[in-house]
């Protein structure tokens, strides 16, 4: 298998995994928008995390920011899989930021809230998996083609 084909397969895998993250983040966004995270009776495991002040940036749910981030990763990874070299830089940049945000959110759950939301842990796992896939992508030594 040549490097280009291997790279395309890895970016396709990143795009597919990002769709799983997008679905998870979309679900959490809907929960936040319907007010379910401020109540008992919907998802009892999660309300301590999703109902906390850390689950919003201003008035915007963190889940919505996550959904936009996963969609960006999906978009850039799809273009990278089709050979758009510049898209690779954007994937790496987005995933780097998401990786740092994920570490912060895990810290918040473990040490500040002492509670875990399984959907948030799933999202963290997705981000780590995407980061791992990106690390496995062979580096390119040529100039971007487009």
């Amino acid at each position, binding site marked *: 298998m040549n490097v280009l084909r291997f790279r395309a397969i890895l970016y396709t895998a990143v795009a597919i995994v990002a769709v799983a993250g997008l679905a998870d983040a979309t679900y959490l966004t809907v929960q936040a928008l319907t007010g379910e995270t401020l*109540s*008992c009776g919907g998802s009892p495991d999660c309300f301590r995390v999703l109902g906390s002040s850390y689950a919003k940036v201003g008035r915007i749910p963190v889940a919505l920011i996550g959904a936009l981030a996963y969609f960006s990763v999906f978009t850039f990874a799809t273009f990278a899989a089709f050979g758009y070299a510049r898209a690779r830089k954007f994937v790496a940049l987005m995933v780097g930021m998401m990786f740092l945000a994920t570490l912060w959110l895990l810290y918040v759950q473990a040490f500040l809230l002492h509670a875990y939301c399984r959907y948030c842990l799933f999202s963290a796992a997705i981000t780590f998996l995407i980061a791992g896939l990106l690390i496995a992508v062979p580096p390119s030594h040529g100039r971007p083609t487009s």
Partner: protein
Amino acid sequence: MKRYLPFVIVAVVALTTFGSGTVLYRAKRPQLHNIPESQSVLAKGDKESAHIRGNPDAPVTLEEFGDFQCPPCGSFASFIGELLKEYDSRLRVVFRNFPLSGHEHAREAAQAAEAAGLQGKFWEMYDTLYREQSLWSNASNARELFESYAGTLGLDVDQFKKDMDGDRVRERIDSDHALADFLGVKVTPTLFINNRAIDPKDKNPEGVRAAINAALEEKSKNGT
């Protein structure tokens, strides 16, 4: 064709996500009905028996369907105290039981509050249950704790024990639950202001204050 394929894929995923998100939002959004006048605390009979805190003749009524084992209800209980100070004689708060089946001791806690209510100390037990929520929620025998709270509040503990399992308490909780089901209540706390449901996304201090202010304004416009 290959040149346009990534654009097509991205567009399809974007539309699918937006579409499924919208469908999910509509499905999850609670469909709450307003409280009918016949079931309102404004009805004379209910006004006498309802658990009312604040000025009984206040122009604005904040009605809560709550669960004593629900942490957001606990947070809301302390916020209610702030609201009653802030709005003084312009606000009254009504509590109705909606113990969730997923909470192990919620029904017993509701029974304890109602049994205390039969001895005239509903709100004192309400405050105690929310203040001590983290303790009894994780206790193996919460009932013993409820009985100790009754003793601390100066209630007749033997009567309290009997009342907890009595018909009056059971009927009261069942009646609140039936009203909640009728109104479409699914989660706690669910709030109504002057019989109108508060949008769940407005269930925060700013949203609740805005709804109370709007109700006050409406009352003053109507001259009542």
